[in-house]
């Protein structure tokens, strides 16, 4: 079942369904956050209203290059997700996702806007914080399964979580960055508009902001799927795991305050690298 037709159908399904799931998750996020704060909150489908509205706003722009990178970001995130559903190389997936982040940063630097540059620099810090952890996660998975291919990883019967609990913990920590949640929502937080306006997104508006929003939906699905990979059989266990991680992020988001970038780097590198390397060392020594 890996003929080109099957892969194509799978790709189409992913491209269509992932944003639906991602958008709903974003809606759920806002709803639950509101509930946690004792508010009613917006409807579940609010993200779809937002994007639809943005898509039909007047197109304004600073320059062409700036817009090009928004497209690049979307396409690269989708590509990363496709690499996952096509069960490709995990390292390559991380590289492609890294390229997507670079595209976003390039976009933010393509305009002479102080807020956008601010966001870009901070996004780079975030990249610096999570990229090694993502790569190490891939390596750890290799240590455990002997392959970087997702197809091979899925053939494992025993959940990865059992032998890679610390790696999983590290992944959950950087999930906070990837989901742009407090305390690591440095680059583009809408709550930080006093200091940042909207960081990297400041100069994007209307349809292009919608593109980025949709890209975030895909990205959310992707990172949650990566979480789910840690308990791939039966499939619903993975889903539960991802959902649990998602809720954990919401709680963290609502109970912490944004930190500065040096604190973030120190926290993430110290905690995640220790966790992952300890897990790797344990695997190496025990196996």
């Amino acid at each position, binding site marked *: 079942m890996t003929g080109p037709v099957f892969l194509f159908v799978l790709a189409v399904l992913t491209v269509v369904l992932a944003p639906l799931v991602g958008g709903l998750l974003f809606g759920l996020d806002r709803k639950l956050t*509101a509930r946690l704060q004792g*508010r009613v909150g917006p409807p579940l489908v609010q993200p779809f209203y937002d994007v639809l*509205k943005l898509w039909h706003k*007047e197109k304004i722009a600073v320059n062409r290059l700036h817009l090009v990178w928004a497209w690049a970001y979307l396409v690269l995130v989708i590509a990363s997700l496709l690499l996952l559903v096509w069960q490709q190389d995990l390292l390559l997936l991380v590289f492609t996702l890294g390229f997507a982040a670079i595209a976003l940063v390039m976009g933010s630097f393509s305009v002479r806007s102080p807020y956008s540059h601010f966001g870009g620099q901070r996004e780079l810090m975030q990249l610096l914080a999570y990229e090694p952890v993502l790569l190490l996660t891939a390596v750890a998975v290799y240590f455990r399964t002997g392959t970087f291919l997702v197809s091979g990883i899925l053939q494992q019967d025993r959940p990865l979580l059992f032998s890679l609990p610390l790696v999983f913990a590290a992944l959950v920590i950087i999930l906070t960055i990837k989901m742009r949640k407090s305390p690591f929502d440095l680059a583009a937080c809408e709550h930080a508009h006093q200091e940042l306006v909207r960081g990297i997104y400041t100069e994007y508006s209307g349809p292009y902001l919608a593109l980025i929003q949709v890209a975030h939906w895909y990205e959310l699905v992707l990172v949650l799927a990566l979480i789910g990979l840690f308990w791939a059989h039966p499939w619903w266990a993975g889903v539960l795991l991802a959902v649990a991680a998602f809720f954990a992020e919401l709680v963290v988001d609502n109970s912490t305050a944004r930190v500065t970038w040096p604190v973030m780097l120190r926290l993430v590198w110290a905690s995640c690298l220790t966790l992952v390397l300890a897990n790797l060392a344990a695997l190496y020594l025990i196996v």
Partner: protein
Amino acid sequence: MGLVTTARVKSPWIMHFDCGSCNGCDIEILACLTPLYDVERFGIINIGNPKHADVLVVTGAANRRNARVLRNLYEQMPEPKLVMAVGTCACSGGVFHQCPNILGGVDKVIPVNVYVPGCAARPEAIIDGVVLALQKLAGAA
């Protein structure tokens, strides 16, 4: 109402600009975001960036110094966009009427769609104003 109009009505992002209010009205606007009034249930977000905003909420009277900034911000907002003047000052100049540096209400500088009077305007009034603005948006589309 078409889908796009629905989306517009359901997702008004506001940008709050203080022209020089006494801060009375500003506090009331912030009050709208608190759990008590929770305007986010209408999809309203205080976005603080004209390029993302649908509704420009202005408090305080327009004066000679900030008229240029007000106009700049207005021009940076993509269509369709609305302007709400919140508080008596923003509506007409209020207590500052005829002060030497005051131009008058916000509508002396940019077109205003909804006036919310009151000194300060109450959160309920502000929310009413938003609803009115959204009706205009729905009607206009």
